[in-house]
């Protein structure tokens, strides 16, 4: 690898590798869209007990993350939950 490689653009093979790595995590987890939808609805129900959230803007997906130990990456459930009002609903 030369010094110039540090400034290079991501090659198409890098893009392919990154896309595949993400894709295979969800493929291997065998999460159907229906199952993901059920998880999403349950999360909305639980969080809504404590604060007002934007159910429409909620996004969940299975990704990979570095593990705490030495065994590389592990699957992780990533959830982005926009909060409308932090105040506890009465």
């Amino acid at each position: 690898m030369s010094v110039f490689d540090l400034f290079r653009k991501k090659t198409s093979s890098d893009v392919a590798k990154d896309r595949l790595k993400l894709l295979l995590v969800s493929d291997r987890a065998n999460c159907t869209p229906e199952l993901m939808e059920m998880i999403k609805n349950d999360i909305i129900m639980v969080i809504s007990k404590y604060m007002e959230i934007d159910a429409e803007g909620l996004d969940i997906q299975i990704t990979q993350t570095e593990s705490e130990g030495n065994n590389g990456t592990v699957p992780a459930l990533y959830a982005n939950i926009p909060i409308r009002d932090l105040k506890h609903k009465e």
Partner: protein
Amino acid sequence: MSEVIVVTSGKGGVGKTTTTANVGTGLAKLDKKVVLIDTDIGLRNLDVVMGLENRIVYNLVDVVEGNCRIKQALIKDKRYPNLYLLPSAQTRDKTAVTPEQMRKLTDELREEYEYILLDSPAGIEQGFKNAVAGADRALVVTTPEVSAIRDADRIIGLLEANEMKRTDLIVNRVRMDMVKRGDMMSIDDVVDILAINLIGAVPDDENIVISTNQGEPLVGTDTLAGQAYMNICKRMLGEDVPMLDLSGKSSLWSKLMGILKKD
């Protein structure tokens, strides 16, 4: 001891049949007694790749249905002393055979042959289940493309679920010029993603097309793909063969030899 090996990929068109033909022929060249079975019922192809299409009398379905004995359906490849082909049926479909029948067939063949290679159809349905039913080990063929790798990953999962004893990877159609430009995933990238043992990589070599045109597997010839396939065969027999440089920079000497051999 004999081994039943299934060649599979999930995705179609990545080189299962070419791999079966070349690995089978290569093992025969290494003095092993080999039978190749085309399990792609309705879409038979292994016979043409092997150049044996004009000698078919009976086929796989005839054997399992008891219309003939196994011996009658096996085509002997006259170019090699120990190579046989059991062709698939062209006019039937995959439901004509069950996994149990395939297991029975491969068990019978074990008594006479050292290597039984099954060319699996694309997909993960009945045809795939038939092909893997009697197999001890699998060769998963993929190319360095996202679609092929995704399907290979799925197949590897299914083979694990089927308790396949051993699964090895063949990365096919590698173009080193594209890998160097960063426009094709490298062999290491593919192995890294699929996380199974690599048994060999085969370059995208136009000689493959030529050899298929002629119906003569190129394994063991002076071509890059021919060497790559022979190395895979040797590794299957347990030999420790270093990975071939697929960039195709042959020495002046081997080029000269190539010219001399052409006549």
